[in-house]
């Protein structure tokens, strides 16, 4: 598929608005604080949120099909703990990472199976896995975070550079690019869109809907698991209670980025810009020395305002287009 001239204008517009907000925020923080507009700060922001960006980009594809995953937090915590645990037993880090990712896949496989085979709604299925995974994370470490016996190079994944760029930034950049290409140019993106827009039509066109949805659940699980490994490396331990609101941040970024929960629309770029907006706000308010509690309040206000503007914006354009069918709006 690929970017077409007129059809995507609506989505593109939305992304453009998001981009404007992003730039405006940067200009504001750059002019009001001294330490914001510096390369080091941007590296810092991106390093801290590389896991979020990566997972959100992948989960956009899933959400385009009208499905979503609440168990990413649990998967992240579980994978982080498992990775640290394996490392503390003396396994080479690469091997530990591979085993962790394999375990993380189980989340996606079970989610996908429950949703496709047993027809349980994604909300409930992944909520169940959120409980189970969260418990499992605590279980394997006995409720204590894994700090001792970790090898010296445990945190090196997050601290090394590649061509002068911090490794996590490179990882997330590569990941986002891959998902962007997958969403815009591969059949996965097209099929995800088709399933979210008209599932029946997709199935009748011969698309194996269950397999696509299943595959995307697994993809998101792998990314959440990788996010767990990255987070464990960043904080230098395996903490079962880390990143409590991770799944919410992921979903909020995707929705702010223009993908509705019902699927059928949305872009990876939109998700990434929306995620960056949220990240920049947090960072900028920190720089301004605003109390962290106020930040929570502001985050909520901005969330509601942004979506309100976004929805109204989309709605007015949509209602122009749809004139004939349908009674009462």
């Amino acid at each position, binding site marked *: 598929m690929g970017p077409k001239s007129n059809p995507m204008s609506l989505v593109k517009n939305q992304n453009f608005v998001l981009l404007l907000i992003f730039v405006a925020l940067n200009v504001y923080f750059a002019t009001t604080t001294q330490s914001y507009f510096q390369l080091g700060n941007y590296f810092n922001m991106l390093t801290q949120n590389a896991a979020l960006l990566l997972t959100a980009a992948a989960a956009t594809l899933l959400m385009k099909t009208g499905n979503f995953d609440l168990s990413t937090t649990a998967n992240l915590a579980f994978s982080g703990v498992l990775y640290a645990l394996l490392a503390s037993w003396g396994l080479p880090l690469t091997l530990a990472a591979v085993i962790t990712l394999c375990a993380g896949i189980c989340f996606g496989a079970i989610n996908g199976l*429950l949703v496709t085979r*047993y*027809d*349980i*709604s994604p*909300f*409930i*299925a992944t*909520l*169940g*896995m*959120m*409980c*189970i*995974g*969260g*418990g*499992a*994370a*605590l*279980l394997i470490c*006995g*409720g204590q975070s894994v700090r001792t016996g970790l090898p010296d190079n445990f945190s090196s994944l997050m601290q090394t550079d590649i061509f002068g760029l911090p490794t996590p930034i490179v990882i997330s950049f590569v990941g986002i690019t891959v998902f962007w290409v997958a969403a815009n140019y591969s059949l996965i993106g097209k099929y995800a869109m088709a399933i979210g827009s008209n599932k029946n039509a997709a199935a009748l066109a011969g698309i194996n809907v269950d397999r696509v949805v299943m595959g995307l659940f697994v993809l998101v699980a792998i990314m959440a698991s990788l996010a767990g490994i990255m987070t464990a490396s960043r904080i230098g331990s395996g903490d079962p209670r880390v990143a*409590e609101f991770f799944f*919410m941040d992921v*979903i*909020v970024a995707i*929705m*702010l980025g223009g993908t*509705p*929960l019902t699927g059928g629309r949305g872009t990876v770029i939109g998700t990434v810009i929306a995620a960056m907006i949220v990240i920049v706000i947090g960072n900028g308010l920190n720089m301004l020395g605003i*109390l962290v*509690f*106020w*930040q*929570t*309040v*502001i*985050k*909520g*206000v901005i*969330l*509601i305002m942004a*979506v*309100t503007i976004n*929805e*109204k914006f989309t*709605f007015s354009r949509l209602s122009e287009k749809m004139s004939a069918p349908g*009674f*009462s709006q």
Partner: protein
Amino acid sequence: MRFLHADPQKVVLIGILAALIVGLTFASPHFLSVTNFTNVLLKVAVIVIIASAANLLMVTGNFDLSVGSVLAFSGILHAYMSKHGVAIELSILITLIVAMGWGGLNALTVSVIGINPVIATVGTLFIARGFALLIARWDGGANIMLGLPRDFVDFGRDPVFGLIPLAIVVMVAAVGTFIFIEKKTALGRKAYAIGANLKSAKLSGINTVGIVSLLYVLVALFAGLSGVLQTSRVGLAAPTVGKGLEFDVIVAIILGGTSMLGGVGSTFGMLLGALVVGFTANGMVLLGIPFYFQTIAYGGILIGTLLLSRKFDAKAAA
């Protein structure tokens, strides 16, 4: 057979509940006692009180993720005002009104403006939680515990008729009220209609915006009430309580057979769902099983019950 056909999920739940009670009676000598049952009920009371209202909200096809934050906020606000010389009754009244304000915010964003409830109520979740933390900080600490007047805790701890804890009385009242609303009032009928088909409901002259808004306000009111009750009983207001409560509430409701899409569900089913969760947790504590197994069991029950009732459904249909 007809009964099975009618509501497999409730049958499954009653079965699980019976099995739990029988099993735990044999497994633990401490299980079958008034103290223990009171304990279980106190634990589920917070969930059930909120879920009574939230159940009817979910019947309309909407839900509220901000209840945990509203509960924490209300607890803190009540404690803060009581500590700073506001009379208990007045403080409770003001707290409940402010709590309804949070519901009003949700009503405005979801029902009037039409934002997806996931985003809108998560926004409220952040804002209410932020203010809870801020009030605690204005008070000068992380929690509000010292300097609370005596009648602050008396309100929560004095049993009604010297017998039953207030929270349990409120829980029974809440469940009773919503069973009544569900069965006997126009509000109940209209809520089901809205969940079954929003467009039809509008064209039938039902004030969809008004009813969904009212239910959001009621949910927030009950969350606020739970906050007041909990803080009073514990004698401590922490701004961090109730994290994840929204999911406990939703799990109880879904376990009870209410569809997230609306149109189906019952208060009684929700009560069964909450009790299953409550007794499971209690049993695990009594049997000395580490707490983290509880969350696993939680998820297992949620998925398991749905799978089981699916199976019953298929059999009943065949």
